[in-house]
Each structure stands twice: as structure tokens, then as C-alpha cells.
């Protein structure tokens, strides 16, 4: 099971509490994790990645295992600890604005 932590506003939107757990087929990448998040929660399409370009929205960040992975390629494998579910994949609203 992959564990994903959504930012509070997206938890409200998707009506979930706490972490989201997902089955993700190998290879576990940003794209495969986000595809699974969106498949389970269609409401979140367009809120994390742009509908058309599928690129990360500018003020959304991806953290995992104490690293900022926002600038990694979407098809790069995520750390083993994410793939095994021992660490969560964090989707963060950037610190900016009011």
C-alpha cells in the first residue's frame, strides 16, 4: 500500500480524513501515484496537476523521506520507502501568499 498525505484543503474537497492508502502498480513514480490518487478521487483532477499539461501546479510541492522531489521527473522511481509504504508521499501547498 502506498500512503499519501493530502494538504488540508484537498482532504476537505475529497472528504477524507488522515492519510490516503492506494494500490499502485510498479514502478511507483509521481505519475503512477498521482494517477491512482485521481482515479480514486476524481474530484482532485486539476487540483494537483494541470488538466491539460499534467504538470504539477506551481504552488504544489511533493515531499518524501525528508526530500523535496517537486523537480524530479514524473516518471522517475520514488524512493523504496514510499513504494513499500513505510514512508508517506506528501502533497503540500507551498508556503506563499495569504
Amino acid at each position, binding site marked *: 500500500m502506498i500512503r499519501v498525505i493530502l*494538504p488540508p*484543503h484537498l482532504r476537505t474537497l475529497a472528504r477524507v480524513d488522515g492519510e490516503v492508502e492506494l494500490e499502485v502498480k510498479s514502478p511507483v513514480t509521481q505519475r503512477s501515484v498521482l494517477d491512482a490518487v485521481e482515479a480514486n478521487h*476524481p*474530484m482532485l483532477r*486539476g487540483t494537483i496537476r494541470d*488538466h491539460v499539461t499534467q504538470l504539477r501546479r506551481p504552488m504544489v510541492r511533493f515531499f518524501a523521506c525528508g526530500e523535496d522531489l517537486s523537480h524530479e521527473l514524473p516518471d522517475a522511481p520514488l524512493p523504496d520507502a514510499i513504494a513499500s509504504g513505510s514512508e508517506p508521499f506528501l502533497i503540500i501547498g507551498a508556503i506563499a501568499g495569504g
Partner: protein
Amino acid sequence: MSRVRVLVGTRKGAFILSSDGARKRWKVSGPHFAGWEIYHMKGSPLDPDRIYASQTSSWFGQIIQRSDDGGKTWNPPGTKPEDLMTSEGMPKGESNMFVYDASPETGKPLTTHQWYDGTQHPWEFKRVWHLEPSLSDPDHVYAGVEDAALFESTDGGKSWHELAGLRGSDTGPKWQPGAGGMCLHTILLDPNNPKRISIAISAAGTFRTDDGGKTWKPINRGLWKPINRGLHSEHIPDPTAEVGHCVHRIALHPSRPNTLFMQKHWDVMRSDDAGDSWQEVSGNLPTDFGFPIDVHAHEPETIYVVPIKSDSEHYPLKGRLRVYRSRTGGNEWQALTKGLPQRNCYVNVLRDAMSVDALEPCGVYFGTTGGQVYASADAGDNWKPIVRDLPAVLSVEVQALP
């Protein structure tokens, strides 16, 4: 006795204010969508409990929400009640896909407009500024968006498609953003002619279709001063240009849809030929800069504006918040001050933040960037704040209910 519901969109959520027809005691519900910017909410004229909301965020983009019970519960269109019935239930709507149409079939493949440096810049969807429910079908609703375009949904807000002929009109590449972004902020539907829609874009101007949105023409003739009054016309080097006019708001009275009133970046204007030509009616206003303009519900020649000091100083003159009313369709204006702060008031009133109700006498409402919503139950003679400490108010719409 009839009731009133005021839909208030703010920088940090939506609030719904309700009262009986006396409009003295108010119940405040909210924040709904706490923490999100609610640019606009508006109810269907056919089914007032059907309300559309534009929920938006710089972080997470655009969401469209819909209520079918007058704002008590909300769902993204496309979610069925059974989707939410179990403990694992979740909304399944995907109501936020606003994708510009650049197909040759529906218009010209227009993908760029003018950027601040004069180069062409790609059209990028940012948010929905204004939702205008149709006059004939509660499932049909228009959306004015930034970067400027007009979208519509015919399935209650679930899916959206662009009326691409507007951007595809010849002037599109010359449009450029104003300070607030290149937004389509006003949509006026003609109650006598379902094929006619007038819209306004900052800072491109006003446009009209007479064929249901297929083709559009700019209707900006006369939006300039024959005599350049000081700095007022400096923002547009060729004042007779077909586009490039910073229209802040237009309004009409349903009984006379050919008469349009406009608050421009500077100047209050009127047109009696559906926008084909415009005349200035600023008259004795102390300043004719401002954002909202609205028309009395029962008197088509009674109009309201909130004069703002200048384009560089977005607050009332001398710290005195005053609504100005003209009972002559412009030119002769009267200051309305009773109940409004007359010292140390430096709030702004944004373009979509004024509305009127259809009760007798007509109620007038406006919200400020300081979080007050002021109401007058006597057409503007006396004012009272309904609430005074909300987040900055972006929009105000009023519904008179049976």
C-alpha cells in the same frame, strides 16, 4: 412574507446571509468552503435553491460547486447523492475542466494574446470570475473566466465548453490584461432575446453576440473622452481603439435590455442602443472612477455607483464611504451617506460586490474589501451593516424568495 438571501463570496470562503422581507434581522451562515477564494455565487432565476459557486485557489486551481437546497449543502456537479451515502462515500464530480477550444471548426485556433511586454502570450486558464445562470434552464449556466473567455455548461455545471467565437473574433490577439488579470467579469443576458449576450473583459472592453455566442463584435464606440481630462485617458494611447478599454462593470434593467450602464476604469457611461454607442453620464460625481454599477429593481432609470478616489488610490474620497444614486439614468447624482462611515474609511468595493433585491421597496447591498456587507431596505436612503468583519468581499448577489 417574502424572504431575502444574500450570497457573499470572500477571499476566505462563502457566507450566506438571510432575513425575512423586513430585512432587519439577519442570520449568517458560513464560512462555506473555508479558506478558499469564492469569486462568485449566483442562483438560477427559475429555481432559486439552485446556486452555482466558483471556488478557487492559487494553490489548487478551480472548483465549481452547486447547491440544490439554497446553500445548505454543496456538491461538485456530477456527484450523485448515493456517492456520499456510505462512510467511504466521496464526491465523484469532476466539474473543473475548463479547456480552451482552439479547434478550426468552432472558431480560429487562437492561442495567444498580448502580454505586458508587447509579445504574444499563451492563454492560460486561471479561475472563474463570474457565473451567470441562464434565464430559461436551471442546468444551463455561463462562466466568465480569466484568461478571458466565455464557457457554458448545459448539464448543471458538470462539464464546460468554450464559446470560442469570442476569443476567435479578430481582436483577440490585441487583448491584454489589466492589473487584476485578463478576466471576463460581466455576463448580461437579454430577457427579450435569448440569442443576445453582452460581456465585458478587463482590459479588452465590451462585446456582444446576437447569434447565441457564435460570433461577437466589440461594442466600445464612444468609450473615450473628446477632451482628455488630465490623466484620465492616459491608460489607452488611442482612445478610439476598437479594444483595450478597461470596462469594470456593466448592468441593465430587465425591462429595458437595450439600455446598458457602465462603470469604466474612469467614467460612468450609458448606451441606449445595446452598446453600439456610449455616452458619458458621470455628471456631478465627485470622482467617476469605481468598480460596481447596478440598477434599481423597479426603476430602470435609477442607478447606483460607489465612487473611488482614483486608479492609484482604491478607496473612497476623503475617507467617506458614499453610494451615489442617480434617478435620471445618470448625469445628476445624489450622495447616499446615512449609516455609512463618513470618516477614516479606506475600503474598496469590487466590481461584482453590489446587488439589488426585487422587494418593495428595493433593497441595495454591497460588500467591501474590509469585510462589511452594507444593506439598505429603502433603495439607498438608509444603510446598515449586516456583517462587518468578514474576509475581503469579492462578490454579493441577492435573491428574493417567496
